[in-house]
């Protein structure tokens, strides 16, 4: 019975962390392309493997709060910039000229580099890497702390492995429907997710005690989404008509 409880606890705790990593990888993969996002995931898993193999049980002494703080602040800065652009576009203030300019710049670059397949998107790579590495490290902590307490690290690792399979199945199921969502809606959603994760992790790293622990992440996501929709409506009603009049 104790073994089942241990596997179940490790499964649930690991699944929460893995879903967080999956959300980030899906977000960058669907909006910016899968190749660099996938290479970020592979690099993070390799780095994670090296860290876990090198440190073993000493892993529990890694300053996870400092890591959360650094990763959280970077995600927050990146997420806010993404959200800002998505809100400006959604409210009609970010001109379509930007898309045209981006397209022309892309065409110019492709003219110099006909084989697009060797281009590397550092944004996708880094965001996917950070998400997977941090969450993977937390899963390793869970396995070591849950399993170590009962001297059954193998069983805790089995729980985490089952969680990995379950989360990968969910990821494969939702990835296709996500690619049919309009581009700016997706970018808006990614901005919301990155900003919310950034708030949550940097808050944890800064020493905040979120009410309900990991469950409060859902509330933070909802808050950021509602506030961003409110800001979009505010810009549509106030700024967009004024600018249209002035530029007409």
């Amino acid at each position, binding site marked *: 019975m104790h073994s089942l409880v241990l596997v179940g606890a490790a499964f649930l705790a690991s699944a929460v962390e893995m879903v967080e990593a999956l959300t980030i990888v899906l977000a960058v993969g669907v909006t910016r392309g899968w190749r660099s996002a996938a290479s970020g995931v592979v690099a993070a898993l390799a780095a994670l493997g090296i860290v876990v193999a090198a440190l073993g049980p000493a892993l529990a002494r890694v300053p996870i709060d400092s890591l959360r703080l650094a990763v959280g602040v970077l995600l927050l800065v990146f997420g806010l910039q993404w959200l800002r652009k998505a809100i400006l576009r959604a409210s009609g*203030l970010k001109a379509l000229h930007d898309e045209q300019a981006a397209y022309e710049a892309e065409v110019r670059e492709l003219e110099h580099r006909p084989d697009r397949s060797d281009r590397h998107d550092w*944004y996708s790579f880094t965001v996917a890497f950070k998400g997977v590495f941090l969450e993977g490290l937390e899963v390793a902590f869970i396995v070591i702390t849950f399993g170590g307490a009962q001297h059954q690290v193998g069983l805790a690792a089995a729980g985490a492995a089952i969680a990995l399979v379950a989360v990968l199945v969910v990821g494969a199921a939702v990835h296709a429907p996500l690619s049919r969502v309009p581009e700016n809606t997706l970018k808006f959603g990614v901005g919301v997710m990155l900003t919310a994760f950034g708030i949550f992790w940097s808050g944890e790293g800064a*020493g905040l005690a979120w009410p309900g622990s990991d469950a409060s992440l859902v509330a933070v996501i909802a808050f*950021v989404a509602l*506030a961003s929709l409110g800001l979009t409506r505010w810009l549509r009603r106030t700024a967009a008509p004024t600018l249209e009049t002035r*530029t007409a």
Partner: protein
Amino acid sequence: MVAPDRSADAGDEDGMKGVRRFARFWYDFIVGDDWSIAAWVVGIVGATALLARRWDVWPLLPLAVIVVLALSLRRAVRDARATAEEGPREL
């Protein structure tokens, strides 16, 4: 007559482009279109870390982040208004 080794030059050029792209990535990542966002985020998280030592201030961070976003949007609109007659510009 031996032809110049263009593949080595092209390799060096690609390497430099890679370094420049990598540096550009970090600049865009941290500074982006509005440098003040990064500055405010660092300030807010730092203040949160100080306040969290004594008080339960969890609502502060999400609220402050939305205020930073609103201020950045307002600045973008103000800049666009100021240059509206000169034609469209990057927000």
